[in-house]
């Protein structure tokens, strides 16, 4: 299925771009699965998504935990813990 992925803050700087369109393999159905799949892209990605640092996720503008299910056309965002205010 096709989804849009956005990256913010230090994650955006590390991957060096802010958004991409992805066509996910059939078995990538949750945030955890997507993180593990992205971690296979190379060292930078592995460092971000191997679970050693906290990466928060949102689906369609809602904060979700890693068990959340991804659906076709979702907008998925990855970012560090927020620090506004």
């Amino acid at each position, binding site marked *: 299925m096709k989804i849009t992925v*956005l990256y*913010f*803050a*230090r994650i955006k700087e590390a991957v060096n771009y802010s958004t991409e369109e992805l066509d996910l393999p059939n078995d990538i159905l949750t945030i955890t699965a997507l993180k593990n799949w992205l971690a296979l892209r190379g060292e930078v990605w592995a460092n971000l998504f191997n679970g050693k640092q906290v990466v928060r996720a*949102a689906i369609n*503008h*809602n*904060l979700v935990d890693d068990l959340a299910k991804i659906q076709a056309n979702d907008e998925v*965002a990855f*970012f*560090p*813990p*927020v*620090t*506004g*205010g």
Partner: protein
Amino acid sequence: MTVRIQTEDFDVGLLLNQLRLANPGAGALVSFVGQVRDINDGDSISTLTLEHYPGMTESALAAIKAEASTRWDLMDSLIIHRVGTLKPLDQIVLVAVLSAHRGEAFKACEFMMDYLKTQAPFWKKEITPEGARWIDAKLSDDAALKRWNK
């Protein structure tokens, strides 16, 4: 009920007066203003840049306001948050809550700030003499949030 994300500065006095004068039944106005500090973690700050997630930010802040309104009897509230590059003494955020009585206004305003700090997609990067660094989220903010669990 206003939520605004903007690069421009805001006029606290004007905004608080508007909120107050539109609600003659309100007796209590509690507000929080956050400003950029000149020193953070021992280093002097040249600039602070706020990044956010357009679209999600607005909906997160609207959700925070709505949740506060279900928990307390409020007459109006306001959240204004700046993004972009700021310098020390610049205003970052204004949260204001208007209620008939002060207890609810104090609780709701602090609740909204605790939620904003932990749930709204803003990130801060500061420039110091040592270079640029992203500010880490604070454990104390997560602890502050937990107090509001029902």
